[in-house]
């Protein structure tokens, strides 16, 4: 018997390996080579020898070794000693168990041609392959450990079955065949109802922990205290009314002290600072979505409709205290791009009251950074372009005031005295101008009493100079000569707005309630340089263009917005907005873009480079409210509009509304060309 495979698998198994002939090993290798059958083209296999293999000569290799297989189990113990109870000594047992069971399999089926299968009951064959514990034994056990034991087992089982069947033929009784391998099994399965779980989790009732110690002295103390209190109550009860009064007195005492402590609370600067930070954090959290929009949202539809734009509403600013006031002024700070002030007052003659100036930042839409309360309604305000903390304020009662945010107190820095040059009608507009030759800050104000006044901030007082009185009818120079003495008889026009020329400091245009616009100069105080006719009703705003210095625009209650050259008395263009136009503003980034706020709650944004007739964006911003003022942020694409419900809305301009120069022209040239086209001339460069 040649044990080829075993020697390959376990070449160093000593007892088994010795008997294997080297010859057979070689032939085995040869077998392997040819095993593929027709795979001669494969490269010849090289024998890999283990490091410690014996080097044998050819004769040694060719030597034939005879191997005798016997039925001794090499693993069986040879020296079993058992206690013999009869003789009461240990005796070596001669019976060594050489039986090794390699495989055992209980068969269920029998072949129908075999008589054995005719057993009356289903035969349970016990098949065991019993082999002598020779070399083969090791093979079988090892192979059982290989990945395919089942296949081997099946083969062995099958062989065993047949052999055994013949042997045991005689022993088994014969009978009719019952099982002939043709089972027909039938099974069906009913549908299992799917399981369903359903549960709810209720909130457990709220719990609380209490701990205490009960002992005699604590009980005693509690009773004593209770008794004392009862006595006190009794003592008070007879006092009756006096007691009640006493209580009231106590209340009175308590209240003021409480408010006092509260004051201290807020004046603590450290705490205040912490509170401000927390407020900012809370706001940042609350308005995070809007802030994201403000920074990153761009209207995608702009790409599809290049000649239209849209406005995205961002934060709304509402001062709770001034809900019933109207927004009468808006002014961005020229240094901090997120900071602006709002003036609250009333345009309604019969509903006047104190006004308010509120400073807001975009970072905190919920509450103003500061609040100044004024005696009379605020009608106008302006941030100083250089001194960023200075605010000029015009009031309904005709006075003007200057506030400084650097001051700790809420009182104005300057206030016009009632006697000295105060306007007699509401101050409709205030505007800072360049510091004068002495370096004093100064601003101008206009009022319906017909005066334009210059206010100079001196060290301690506010000095006033009347720049011009707006005569309603401007006579020819001869007439003025004649009637100069009785100048008082002239009725004055009610000025409602003005704007200074961006380059020539002395030049400015004034809009009046009568609808006329005058070009004036600081140098000539009773003569207009030019009178612009066109508006039929009160002019609410005039604004010089930021780029083309001779062009200005006016908004009026007669539903129109007109574009003028300040050297011509007729408008260049006119736009009808179908509603009274409360305010108008040029965009700071483009010479051709301006926005108007109308009384029906719409914001109209024009870009003359895109469309000379229609606004490129007309959007309803508020319902049931009139828009009163509008202002462009000088740095960011944000527009502010105020309405007569005291609300200020910030709007983000979509990319189409903030297009700069397309052709690469100078901004001024761009507008100049458009004006030339409007006049029917061909544009020049």
């Amino acid at each position, binding site marked *: 018997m040649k044990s080829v495979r075993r020697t390959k698998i376990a070449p160093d198994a000593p007892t088994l390996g010795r008997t294997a002939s080297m010859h057979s090993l070689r032939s085995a290798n040869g077998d392997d080579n040819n095993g593929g059958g027709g795979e001669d083209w494969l490269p010849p296999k090289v024998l890999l020898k283990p490091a410690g293999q014996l080097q044998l000569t050819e004769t040694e290799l060719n030597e034939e070794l005879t191997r005798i297989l016997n039925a001794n189990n090499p693993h069986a113990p040879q020296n079993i000693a058992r206690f013999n109870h009869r003789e009461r000594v240990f005796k070596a047992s001669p019976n060594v168990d050489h039986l090794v069971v390699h495989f055992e399999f209980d068969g269920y089926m029998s072949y129908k041609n075999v008589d054995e299968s005719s057993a009356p009951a289903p035969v349970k064959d016990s098949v065991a392959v019993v082999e002598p514990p020779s070399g083969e034994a090791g093979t079988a056990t090892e192979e059982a450990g290989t990945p395919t034991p089942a296949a081997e087992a099946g083969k062995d089982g099958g062989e065993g079955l047949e052999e055994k069947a013949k042997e045991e033929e005689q022993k088994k009784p014969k009978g009719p065949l019952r099982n002939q391998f043709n089972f027909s099994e039938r099974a069906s399965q009913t549908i299992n109802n799917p399981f369903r779980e359903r549960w709810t989790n209720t909130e457990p009732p709220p719990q609380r922990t209490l701990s205490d*110690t009960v002992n005699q002295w604590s009980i*005693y103390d509690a009773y004593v205290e*209770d008794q004392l209190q009862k006595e006190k109550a009794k003592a008070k009860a007879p006092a009756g009314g006096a007691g009640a009064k006493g209580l009231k007195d106590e209340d009175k005492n308590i209240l003021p002290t409480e408010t006092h402590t509260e004051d201290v609370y807020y004046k603590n600067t450290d705490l205040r600072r912490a509170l401000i930070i927390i407020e900012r954090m809370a706001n940042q959290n609350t308005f995070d979505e809007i802030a994201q929009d403000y920074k990153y949202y761009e209207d995608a539809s702009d790409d599809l409709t290049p000649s239209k734009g849209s406005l995205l509403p961002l934060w709304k600013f509402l001062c709770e205290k001034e809900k019933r006031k109207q927004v009468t002024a808006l002014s961005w700070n020229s240094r901090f791009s997120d900071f602006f002030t709002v003036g609250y007052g009333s345009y309604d003659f019969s509903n006047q009251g104190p006004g308010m100036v509120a400073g807001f930042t975009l970072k905190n839409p919920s509450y103003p950074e500061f609040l100044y309360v004024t005696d009379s309604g605020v009608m106008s305000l302006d941030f100083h372009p250089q001194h960023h903390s200075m605010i000029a304020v015009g009031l309904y009662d005709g006075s003007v005031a200057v506030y400084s945010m650097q001051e700790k107190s809420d009182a104005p820095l300057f206030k016009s005295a009632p006697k000295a040059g105060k306007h007699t009608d509401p101050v409709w507009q205030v505007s800072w101008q360049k510091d004068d030759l002495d370096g004093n800050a100064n601003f101008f104000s206009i009022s319906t009493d017909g005066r334009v006044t210059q206010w100079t901030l001196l060290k301690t007082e506010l000095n006033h100079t009347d720049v011009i009185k707006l005569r309603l009818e401007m006579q020819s120079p001869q007439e003025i000569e004649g009637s100069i003495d009785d100048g008082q008889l002239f009725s004055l026009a009610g000025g409602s707005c003005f704007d200074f020329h961006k380059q020539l400091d002395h030049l400015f245009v004034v809009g009046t309630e009568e609808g006329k616009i005058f070009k004036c100069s600081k140098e000539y105080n009773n003569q207009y340089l030019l009178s612009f006719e066109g508006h039929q009703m009160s002019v609410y705003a005039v604004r010089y263009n930021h780029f083309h210095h001779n062009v200005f625009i006016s908004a009026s209650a007669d539903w129109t917005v007109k574009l003028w050259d300040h050297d011509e008395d007729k408008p260049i263009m006119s736009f009808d907005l179908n509603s009274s136009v409360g305010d108008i503003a040029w965009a700071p980034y483009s010479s051709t873009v301006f926005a108007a706020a109308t009384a029906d709650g719409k914001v109209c944004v024009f870009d003359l480079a895109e469309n000379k007739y229609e606004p490129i964006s007309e959007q309803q911003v508020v319902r049931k409210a009139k828009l009163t003022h509008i202002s462009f942020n000088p740095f960011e694409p944000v527009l502010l509009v105020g309405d007569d419900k005291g609300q200020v809305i910030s709007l983000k301009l979509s990319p189409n509304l903030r297009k700069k120069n397309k052709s690469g022209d100078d901004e001024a040239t761009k507008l100049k060309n458009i004006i030339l086209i409007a006049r029917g001339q061909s544009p020049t460069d």
Partner: protein
Amino acid sequence: MADLGSTANLAAADKGAVAAAPGTDEKDAKRNFNYPLVKICDMAEELRVEAVDMVVTAVEKHPGNFEAAAQNIKELMDKRCGNSWHAVVGEGYGFEVTHEMRNLLYMYFGGNLGVLVWKAS
């Protein structure tokens, strides 16, 4: 029965309040302390009154037998407003209990007893 008992006690307490002026000796004081004194209670007013009555009745019914009194209180309370009530009656003990809110009564009675009634499931 319970009502009668408690009102009688309360009346006694009122009298006691007048009598317990500083200077009265301890025995007097102790006798006068024969009324329920609610130390901590977060029950609804109606339930509180009822619970105090129950405690008073139970303690008076089983004088000197705290266990029986406590059991009595517990059973009454269970019957009155749902299961899982617990009661402790004793002259000296410490406790730390977790109770369902609005279901706790901690009171003194008779000048020497601490009674704790609470609900916890």
